[in-house]
């Protein structure tokens, strides 16, 4: 795989981003230094970068997985909401599950909930022909509605003003590593990396993963080869949803220890960028997820350490990087010294 192009694109995107901060009235060098150090300045900073990266890797995988069979999953946000809500509900209600199995149980609940949420879109696509982009967006709204109903009416934590569910019972908690100071990095860190590797194996080394890619490559040829398109699409969206649902493990079991309404700063949407930058390669997603995690961390620090830059800049930067990456053909032309016609 060509690794230079996405890196070059990232640097160009970053450069354009700094230009924007210049116009916003900041010293771009200063902004760059904050950016460069904020993600890695201390073990805590690094821990926070990891914390942001973990969900992004999972949502990146989710988007990429759906894309392998030709589906565009805009619904990772809703799927991770359902996943986190399921993990928190399990942790709050089934208090007697023994500690050695409880986190796994919560993880399964999260994956299932996200999977069902994705699977619904898959079903509607396969059996009813409803376009997945529309249905996943709608399902995002429904998930948000369910989440706020549960947090406000059903499982509201009475000890706080904030809209969040009652805390999970202690046997569900994942220990955070002392190394990262107070940053909530737990063994969930490995989950993202292991899942990425498993996704790679699934897609490129199993007959089922092969079917998904075959459908994405040529539906008609796949169905001639007796591969059921509808089954594949449903399965594919289920798996994509469950990957996003797994975000709930880290976010609930080690970070918040409950479900906080609006805990996600748009992980599901940034996941699209993560998948795009990595060109859908599950292993590359580990790295692009990490990059976007660092961006997220840098952006939240910028807000604190500068006057004119808000965390919205992170979004601007992400958008610029995506634009830079998607202008791929353009770089090729520029590099080959041809005249560029727009």
């Amino acid at each position, binding site marked *: 795989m060509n690794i230079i192009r996405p890196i070059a694109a990232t640097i160009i995107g970053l450069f354009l981003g700094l230009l924007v901060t210049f116009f916003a009235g900041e010293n771009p060098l200063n902004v760059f230094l904050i950016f460069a150090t904020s993600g890695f300045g201390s073990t805590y900073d690094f821990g926070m970068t990891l914390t942001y990266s973990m969900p992004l890797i999972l949502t990146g995988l989710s988007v990429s997985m759906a894309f392998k069979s030709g589906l565009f999953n805009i619904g990772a946000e809703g799927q991770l909401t359902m996943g986190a809500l399921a993990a928190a509900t399990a942790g709050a209600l089934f208090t007697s599950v023994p500690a050695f199995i409880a986190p796994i149980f919560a993880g399964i609940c999260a994956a299932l909930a996200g999977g069902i949420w994705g699977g619904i879109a898959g079903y509607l696509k396969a059996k009813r022909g409803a376009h997945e982009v529309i249905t996943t967006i709608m399902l995002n709204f429904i998930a948000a509605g369910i989440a706020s109903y549960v947090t406000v009416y059903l499982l509201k934590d009475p000890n706080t003003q904030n809209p969040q569910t009652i805390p999970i019972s202690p046997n569900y908690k994942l220990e955070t590593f002392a190394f990262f100071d107070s940053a909530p990095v737990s063994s969930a860190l490995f989950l993202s990396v292991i899942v990425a590797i498993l996704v790679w*194996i699934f897609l490129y080394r*199993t*007959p*089922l993963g*092969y079917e998904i890619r075959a459908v994405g490559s*040529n539906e008609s*040829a*796949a169905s*001639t080869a*007796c591969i059921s398109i509808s089954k594949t699409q449903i399965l594919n969206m289920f798996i994509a949803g469950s990957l996003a649902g797994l975000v709930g493990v880290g976010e609930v079991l080690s970070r918040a220890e409950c479900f906080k309404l609006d805990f996600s700063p748009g992980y599901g949407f940034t996941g699209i960028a993560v998948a795009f930058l990595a060109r859908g390669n599950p292993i590359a997603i580990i790295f692009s997820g990490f990059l976007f995690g660092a961006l997220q961390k840098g952006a939240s620090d910028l807000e604190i350490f500068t006057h004119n830059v808000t965390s919205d800049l992170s979004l601007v930067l992400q958008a610029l990087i995506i634009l830079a990456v998607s202008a791929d053909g353009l770089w090729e032309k520029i590099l080959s010294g041809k005249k560029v016609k727009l």
Partner: protein
Amino acid sequence: MNISKNQVAFEFREVTKTFGKIIANNKISFSVPKGSIRALVGENGAGKSTAMKILFGLYKEDSGEVLVNGQPQHWSSPRDAIKNGIGMVHQHFMLAETATGLDNIILGDENNTLKIPFLPLSLNIIDRKKAKIRIEKIAKKYGLSVPLDIKISKLPVGMQQRIEILKLLYRNADILILDEPTAVLTPHEVEELFTNLKKLKAEGKTIIIVTHKLKEVLSFTDHITIFRSGQVIGNIETHDATEEKIASMMVGRNVNLKPQIPNGTNIKGPVLNLTDVTLKDYKTKDSKRNLLNKINLKVSGGEIVGIAGVEGNGQSDLLDLIFHPQKYFGKKTSQTSSASGEISLLGIDIKHKKSSEMSNLIVGFIPEDRHVDGLLLNMSAEENYILGRHWERKFRIGFLQNISKIKKTVKKEMELYDVRPRNSELLASGFSGGNQQKIIIAREFGKDPNFIVAANPTRGVDIGAIEFIHQRIVEERDKGVGILLISSELDEITTLADRIIVLYEGEIVAEYKRNEANEYQIGLAMCGGLPQEGVRK
């Protein structure tokens, strides 16, 4: 136009083009005089399409030069080639399926500006009325009449091809490149095409056709350029050539063009059985006739049954019915068509079988259109080889794929079928048309099926490979495999089939044993001519 015999339309001088390690064109040199028809022949992957794509500005040569009208060309894209009067119809058509013929022809044309009255402005808006009038004029002149207001996807391939050609003429092309133009046409359409090309030649246009059909080459070209493994190994005048001579030059050995194949003797029980199958069509309201009407067809193990017929007389419907029966027989009958009658495959009633259940019945299938139904173009040769066979025991270890076994098998098969290049990791799209077909055939025969459906199995395949594929089909038959052969090449059917069935307007109108009827008689039946002697139905 004033054409002297010596004027050269274009010339290749020592042109070399490589793709990585593959040398597609190796110092090729040849020239084509104006106002002539030139055939390019050669085995699959010999570099014919590549050379033409260089002329058309799609590829840039590594070294050497191409002269057009005596001038060295330095084009960076087809746009420049088109400006200089070169047009190309590709092996696989490049039309926008959802747009009309008119839109396809004027698409990308820049000389069609609309003057705005009373203003010193001329907008780059296409004046469709003017364009249409011009196209109709051209069409009339060359006898290329086509419906211009119908979507491409609704037109038969012959019409689509006319539109491709009109597109070139509309752009004033003087040099017309046609890459395998007859591969998808019916015999009648082929004849029409040749008549048209001759008219164009008389106008002074230069025509290059890339083809594997030697009969056609002999019947209407002026010169023949022969390619072998990336080199031009000879130019001969057509009136000095014979099929055998061209074939042996192409392949480098003698080829038996008309082998005598004996009848199959290893006859087993029936593998396909259709009884009174009728397929009704509700799409066209006024249609009184059925897509398929009371078809009774039996294929036994160990015999080759050939279906002859002009394209569009029910062959595709028959195939679809065999492979997707639930679409027509199922409870949720689709609105557009429904079937009645009995259909069984390998002794099993498949009327209500879903595609996943069908996969248990091992049937080899070589589809009509390899790009649509046969290949995953953006995946590797290996991944294409296992399509539909990915659950086979030998390709798995439990739930994992046995990658090393897959690689080994594919390498061996590529050797056996002489797929070039021998690179199992190359994407399917990187193989030439004929080599793509070989990959499909290797895969389907490798299934060890009891029944094989072969639709145009040698479409776009060179004669050396045709010989080989035909041998393989006969070998399978002699092993006791039942084979249903559908082909637009009457030649292929009379050579291979033990039994020939003629489809006309969805009905079986005639049936012959091997050597019972000549091609003329069959041809007549295909067009709904009067039943001949020896006709059973």
